[in-house]
């Protein structure tokens, strides 16, 4: 039927092209008269976006969220968030006749007895992994290029909250099928909650509606997963994007690019077309993954039963750092005081991870305070030009990566034929020593790269051509770098440590001293950009 319709319409559209444009004009007039939307279209359509591959990572997270939203809506039509027990009677033979929750049996129904159900489930899950990973990469780009500086500090906070909410979405979704893996994940969360002194047990009862696992938790997680969390995420994404429009996009330094302009393509028509196409490419890649690679085979895990735990039980990758932190804790940290057990093996990871998350959340404010920088920044830093920030970032990445690696300690042990204790001890060491080493090495590498840039700006590239002068002396000819390239090498801010200055009352406060000390640590090791004077001098030799 649909085929017939399009066949009839197609020739009409091609034979009278003017009719089409007249229709467009009439339609836009109609809409404009009722919404006055042209102002917004003009404003958004002329927004300029600079071109750099790393600027598209945020788009990837947005697109994967749209994919999650679409596939998730499909899944809600068939999934039943109930822990009432049923006897499975679907088509997967090794589970036939087994007692399980309705949640699990409806998940199996989606996987085996619903046309396209398994594909949609797998797209949903793979897209979720891509979503959080893309947010992570996007955040790293923002951090290492200093895009979080004024006026974008609040947008960093919004983005980071989105990252946390994405993890919460992921975890609640992971728990919904009520299979063995998700039940084990919940069991660990229950343990962590119960590890909180005094109130832990009561909070756990509150969350689970009594003893673990009870019959309430899946329904509650479902409400969070499909109602509360998505609503907050959509609202925050909207704010995030409005801020991007308000602040305009940042750009890398280059000829003609200043703090007061944005060089790139306007949204309409090219950028929008490219972005629209990019959405379908991302969708395509995720669908390909979902078509060819199994994710979360709940039929292997079977229905949840509190007694078994499978080898290789891990959370999805984005919760891995928390699982790793628990695995890294040495034994014997449970203390009994006045008839109460204090589980420091749980409390220490909780506090350390909480602090880590807090520091990342408020990092823009910390750096702004240390540097005393109140200027607006629309030009991005090259990571090497701010060695201390880059080094702190590298240390953070190493810390996170160590925790992450710890979560796969058992898989590492079997696949590299190592002892699991050896793996854990190694990762314990890299969790503490790794960030220090990464900080020192990265800082030195950045400074060395800055030195190299300075050398190239002043004296050009080594051409490899050796010339013998009439007097017998050998020199290597340096090829001067062209002006456009040189601009990128010399155009960055020269940050200097703060000077101690008395305040209005003529006093020097302790806080002021701390700040100056921090600023000295942040900016003391630096290479100044090449000045015009030096360049002129450099041109002479």
């Amino acid at each position, binding site marked *: 039927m649909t085929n017939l319709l399009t066949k009839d319409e197609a020739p009409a559209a091609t034979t009278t092209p003017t009719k089409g444009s007249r229709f467009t004009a009439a339609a836009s007039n109609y809409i404009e008269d009722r919404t006055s939307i042209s102002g917004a279209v003009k404003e958004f359509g002329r927004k300029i976006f600079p071109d750099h591959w790393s600027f598209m990572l945020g788009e990837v997270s947005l697109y994967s969220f749209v994919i999650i939203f679409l596939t998730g809506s499909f899944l809600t039509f068939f999934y039943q968030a109930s822990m009432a027990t049923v006897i499975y009677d679907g088509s997967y033979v090794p589970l036939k006749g087994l007692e399980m929750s309705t949640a699990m049996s409806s998940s199996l129904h989606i996987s085996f007895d619903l046309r396209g159900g398994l594909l949609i489930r797998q797209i949903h899950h793979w897209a979720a992994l891509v979503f959080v990973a893309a947010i992570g990469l996007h955040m790293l780009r923002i951090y290492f290029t200093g895009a979080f500086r004024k006026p974008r500090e609040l947008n960093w906070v919004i983005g980071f909250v989105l990252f946390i909410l994405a993890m919460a979405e992921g975890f609640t979704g992971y728990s919904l099928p009520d299979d063995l893996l998700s039940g084990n994940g919940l069991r660990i969360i229950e343990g962590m909650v119960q590890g909180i002194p005094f109130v832990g047990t009561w909070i756990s009862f509150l969350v689970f509606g009594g003893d673990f696992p009870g019959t309430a938790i899946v329904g509650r997680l479902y409400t969070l997963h499909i109602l509360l969390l998505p609503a907050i995420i959509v609202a925050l994404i909207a704010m995030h994007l409005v801020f991007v429009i308000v602040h305009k996009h940042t750009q890398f330094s280059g000829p003609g690019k200043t703090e007061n302009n944005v060089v790139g393509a306007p949204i309409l028509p090219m950028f929008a077309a490219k972005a629209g196409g990019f959405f379908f490419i991302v969708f395509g*890649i995720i669908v390909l993954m979902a078509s*060819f690679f199994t994710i979360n*085979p709940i039929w292997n895990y079977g229905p949840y039963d509190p007694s078994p735990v499978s080898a290789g039980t891990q959370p999805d990758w984005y919760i891995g750092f928390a699982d790793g932190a628990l695995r890294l804790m040495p034994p014997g940290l449970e203390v009994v005081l006045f008839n109460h057990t204090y589980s420091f093996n749980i409390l220490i990871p909780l506090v350390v991870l909480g602090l880590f998350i807090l520091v990342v959340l408020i990092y823009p404010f910390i750096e702004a305070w240390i540097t005393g920088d109140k200027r607006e920044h629309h030009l991005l830093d090259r990571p090497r030009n701010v060695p201390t920030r880059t080094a702190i970032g590298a240390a953070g990445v190493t810390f996170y990566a160590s925790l992450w690696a710890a979560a796969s300690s058992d898989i590492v042990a*079997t696949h590299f034929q190592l*002892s699991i204790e050896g793996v854990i001890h190694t990762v314990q060491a890299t969790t503490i020593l790794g960030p220090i080493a990464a900080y020192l090495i990265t800082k030195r590498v950045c400074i060395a790269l800055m030195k190299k840039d300075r050398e190239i700006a002043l004296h050009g590239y080594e051409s490899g051509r050796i010339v013998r002068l009439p007097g017998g002396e050998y020199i290597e000819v340096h090829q001067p770098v062209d002006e456009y390239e040189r601009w990128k090498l010399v155009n960055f801010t020269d940050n200097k440590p703060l000077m101690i200055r008395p305040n209005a009352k003529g006093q020097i406060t302790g806080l002021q001293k701390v700040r100056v000390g921090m600023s000295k640590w942040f900016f003391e090791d630096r290479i100044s950009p090449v000045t015009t004077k030096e360049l002129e001098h450099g041109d002479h030799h």
Partner: protein
Amino acid sequence: MATVALIAIGLIFTGGGYALFSSTATAGTSASSQTTIDEGKKLFAANCASCHGAALQGTAAGPSLIGVGAASVDFQVGTGRMPLAMSGPQAMQKPVQFSPDQVSAMAAYVASLSPGPAIPDASLLDGKGDATNGAELFRINCAMCHNVAGAGGALTEGKFAPPLTGVASVHIYEAMLTGPQNMPVFNNANLTPEDKRDIITYLKYLEANPSPGGYELGSLGPVAEGLFVWIFGLGAIVAVTIWLTAKSN
């Protein structure tokens, strides 16, 4: 057509060979003739006695084999774990060193000296039991070491539970019965022969029916999935972003 014929011939040969092998193994336990036992004794003296002792009594280098039964010998030697390649956290598998006849001769010899678990009857290995029961028993009793899909897992101090894909039914049964290496013994009171048959049925079902969702990534769970999404998923997406923003030269 040639392929089909080849596959058919291959199936006949492997199936026939397998039937031959399992029937000789059972025959070895039920009516092991004196000649077979003598043959086994010679092989034992030449290959095993240096560690396990000439009278199976064990030495400082190896445990006593009194009462381990034919099933133990068939598993350890038949999977290539014995003779031991080297000392380590646990015996590693290597290519099988003896012919099926030689393995059953040694099994018959060890069984002739003291009673112990026999090589299971072929009727318990046919993989035609109750897969649902087998799957549930597997998750409860085996998955904590071997992983829900039988992909294997880590134990302490460098020991590990091996993957179960591609393991012959008879060896799975014998492993449950005799508890090799670090594995606990699941005797017939714990898991009845019928239960063991169900577990084998489930494992063979997994082998014969690859994941409906596509390639399993080793059935290792979220770690493999995470690694895959970072390297191939995001790798592909980042490659596309670079392509989209590339300037023509």
